[in-house]
């Protein structure tokens, strides 16, 4: 492991790895598509760094309206009450439901922050060729990939509340302006993890 340039890699052996079915194809024999599954073959995901940067920046920008605009509107006896994600979390903590408050805090605020900061760190580390902690950065990326979908939680909760808490004019619940931005953050971070090629970390 002392000299990373001696390790056998696909690139050094002139082998292309299919992104979809993981078949190895010699670059010299490649016709551009995988002979097994038909996916387009690339040595690395095309434009990986640029696309990932663009999506991470998009997610970071969308985070502001997602967190500062109200995400849920409760109409109770004719009076409207708008609440942001943070209001909802504070409500649970005040009520003494620390467990559920922690779950929502994690899924809606900590996870999106973690994804954006984590991907930025990984991208900067490639840009500046920081070659330390590679195994940890690989692990960081796998965590980001895994947790990506879990921040949709709040959107699902609002959709369910909207249908279930619907008592004529007494109480109704609806999604408020932050909802599409919030969904946008989740989509952008998930796509960022898809467009990123973790092999680039090891070649920086």
């Amino acid at each position, binding site marked *: 492991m002392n000299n990373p340039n001696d390790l056998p*890699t696909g690139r050094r052996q002139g082998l292309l790895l299919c992104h979809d079915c993981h078949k190895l194809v010699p670059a010299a024999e490649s016709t551009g598509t995988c002979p097994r599954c038909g996916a387009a073959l690339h040595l690395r995901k095309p434009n990986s760094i640029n696309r990932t940067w663009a999506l991470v920046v998009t997610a970071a920008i969308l985070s502001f309206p997602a967190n500062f605009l109200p995400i849920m509107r409760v109409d109770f006896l004719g009076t409207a009450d708008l609440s942001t994600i943070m209001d909802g979390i504070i409500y649970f903590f005040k009520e003494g439901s620390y467990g559920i408050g922690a779950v929502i805090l994690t899924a809606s605020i900590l996870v999106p922050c973690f994804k954006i900061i984590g991907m930025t760190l990984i991208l900067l580390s490639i840009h500046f060729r920081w070659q330390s902690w590679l*195994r940890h950065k690989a692990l960081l990326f796998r965590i980001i990939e895994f947790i990506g979908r879990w921040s949709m939680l709040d959107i699902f909760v609002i959709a369910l509340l909207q249908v279930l*808490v*619907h008592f004529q004019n007494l109480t109704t619940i609806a999604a408020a302006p932050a909802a599409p931005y919030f969904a946008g953050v989740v989509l952008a971070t998930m796509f960022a993890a898809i467009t990123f090629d973790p092999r680039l970390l090891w070649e920086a």
Partner: protein
Amino acid sequence: MTKSPSSQTLEQVIACPGCDLLVGRQHLNPGEKLYCPRCNEVLLAPKKNSIERSLALSLTGLLLFPYAMFLPIMTLDTMGLKNSGSIFDGVISTMATKHVFVGIILALTSIFFPLIKLALLFLVSLNLKLKRHPKTLPLMMRSYIHLDEWGMLEVFMIGVLVTIIKIHHMAHIRYDAGFFCFVGLMLVALCSSAMLDEDNYWHLIEEGKRR
């Protein structure tokens, strides 16, 4: 660059999708895993009876699907007013508001993609089980892999639990049949993904293509 190796040697080698290291393929027993020595990515994870189990689980999922989506999951009762709703109602009511974009994402991640995933897994497993190799088989398998993380039934399940905790002291909750069907569907979908041995599936698809 060295001379390109023969296809037979290539089948004895795996390139790590996480770091591109070439690792020799090893024979593993079901349940064992091969990790990349450099970046710790899981390279191989063979499963026992992967085809039969995926087939059974995806079929169960498909049978549960309409009940989990269309039956009301719970009924709320407060001050004599009753109200119930299904997962489908939740998605449709969001679509019907001005938040169409959110509604579409909900419809895709909680109804459409989970259904397509189950159907694709069922079709691919059935074809492999019957040793039939239609031309669309690789495409179906690829679509399944791409859709994998976009079906979000588990996340929705946690959403149902959070909703229950949010409303349990403002109304009496009665759990309806849809709730249990949804829990079942979520578990079956989760297990069907966990039982899938991708490497073995691709290997069989390739063998079928050669014949």
